């Protein structure tokens, strides 16, 4: 691999808002005292009249975003995933999703890689609580470019969208030119023995796992699936049929999140053995992202082990 550049996905959010802010007067941004760390600050500085500071009051901010949308605006709500997909869930459910209001939700600090802040601030359940809502679209981009493309797409789409991004710099693994199609998986590596279905910035660990498995003579198909809902059922069914086993990888609880969405597609199309890499029904902890990935089983080594289990199950 050529030298990889690193950048936080939240920067993709900040840059996309600046770009869209210039193009479309209807874009407004709401913040809840976390504007710097969500990168909403960049928009605030450039377009102060279109930024609304709501203070530490997320429930109000979410339903107010619905009001702004009803007044013809395209509101982007920016705060940490835990405070939006948890605390303001009923506002998202009943006010935003029920009436299919055009509100865009940016869930920052997703996943365990938030690091030292610890369990209270690591969103590990947000994909599950958002995915369960009718009318909601859920996207977890893998890097800076994918985040930017997801935000640009969401600005044009009419309806509620949840986009999750992270705090820490992560490898830039896609390019500005690669297509971003909502609801469509991207094939990163083709293979025939097994499929790794990835969601989010753990993609880098998946790519390392693919390399390690290649050295062991295992041919791995690697799918990067940014859209959790609607899930790309077709690509998943095809992978199940053609490779006979799937490992789902996500930086989120394995209960109810991306892996569950993949499993729902698999069992209804072409049932095959599956394993789930993610947080195994635990709360997070303080530490460096590297320490936490090791402790919570999210490294390439763990993915390889899960793949080997699937291969064994295939033979059984």
């Amino acid at each position: 691999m050529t030298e990889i550049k690193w950048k936080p996905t939240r920067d993709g959010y900040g840059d996309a808002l600046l770009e869209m802010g210039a193009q479309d007067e209807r874009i407004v941004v709401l913040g809840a005292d976390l504007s710097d760390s969500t990168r909403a600050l960049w928009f605030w500085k450039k377009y102060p009249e279109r930024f609304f500071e709501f203070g530490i009051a997320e429930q109000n901010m979410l339903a107010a975003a619905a009001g702004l949308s009803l007044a013809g605006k395209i509101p982007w709500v920016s705060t940490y995933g835990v405070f939006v997909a948890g605390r303001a869930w009923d506002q998202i459910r009943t006010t935003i999703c029920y009436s299919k209001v055009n509100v865009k939700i940016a869930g920052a600090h997703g996943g365990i890689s938030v690091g030292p802040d610890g369990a209270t601030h690591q969103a590990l359940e947000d994909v599950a609580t958002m995915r369960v809502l009718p009318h909601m679209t859920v996207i977890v981009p893998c890097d800076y470019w994918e985040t930017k493309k997801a935000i640009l797409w969401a600005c044009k789409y009419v309806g509620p969208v949840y986009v999750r991004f992270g705090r820490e710099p992560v490898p830039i693994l896609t390019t500005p030119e690669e297509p971003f199609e909502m609801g469509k998986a991207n094939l990163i590596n083709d293979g025939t023995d097994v499929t790794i279905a990835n969601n989010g910035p753990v993609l880098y660990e998946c790519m390392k796992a693919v390399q390690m498995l290649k050295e062991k003579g295992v041919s791995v198909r690697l799918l990067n699936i940014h859209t959790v809902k609607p899930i790309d059922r077709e690509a998943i069914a095809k992978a199940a049929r053609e490779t006979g086993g799937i490992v789902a990888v996500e930086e989120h609880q394995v209960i109810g999140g991306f892996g569950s969405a993949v499993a729902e597609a698999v069992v209804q199309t072409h049932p095959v053995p599956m394993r789930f890499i993610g947080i195994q029904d635990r709360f997070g902890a303080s530490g460096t992202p590297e320490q936490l990935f090791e402790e919570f089983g999210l490294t390439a080594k763990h993915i390889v082990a899960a793949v080997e289990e699937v291969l064994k199950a295939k033979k059984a």
Partner: protein
Amino acid sequence: MVDQAEIERLKKVAKSIRCDIIWALAHAGSGHPGGSLSATDFCTALYFHTLKHDPGTCSWEGRDRVIFSKGHVSPLVFSLLAEAGYIDREELKTFRHFGSRLQGHPNCECPGIEVGTGSLGQGLSIGVGLALGLRLDRKPNRVYCIMGDGENQEGSTWEAIMSAGHFKLDNLCVILDNNGLQIDGWVEDVMGLQPIADKWRAFRWHTIEIDGHDMAQCVDALDLAQEVKGQPTVIIAKTVKGKGVSFMENRAEWHGKAPKPDEARQALQELACPAEYLDF
């Protein structure tokens, strides 16, 4: 001051709305009479005196926006919309029935409804966002939010009250249906809110306290609210839950239960409704 003829006209409309409420509930067999009847008079003043709207063109840009934060008063909401001409009065008979546009709590399927409501403590926040958006576009439209008093127990309501005061939203007006009752009993016993007006004032709101069943006071307060600059206005309307039906007045049990056919007949009789209402 509004002339007496206007007041008499509005009183007649309110009487008809109350008949529609009981009639819709009788056909539905479930629903919320108490808060619908307590909010009838000021909502009549709002819809038939104050509001700029076009029932023929729901999406008319110049319309004022109404958010029923207390979405459970759907019998009142749909009766107002029928009286205004958004929907056909006959449709009230489908209220709460399978396949009807008139759901248990109002949603966007019904013309004249801006957004679905029903989970308390969210409507005012929607109103805050609407008011901010309209102000950003320098539009003259006003935003009205109908709230219950028990709803002031929701923490999110105070987030919304705080933000409206902070943002100085003088295009936003709340009418608070202060009937003093909620499902479990008197608001003061369940979780006391008094002094309610002082609380809103402390959050930078202009407060007007009225008798919510005195049509002249309702109209005057709504007129006055439009003149207030630099802060939002709350009209705290002292009302009687179940107003107009003797056996429902001030009784918490009538919060969310429909009258049985004989009770509905008695209610319609007390309200002096025309005989055609007795078709259930």
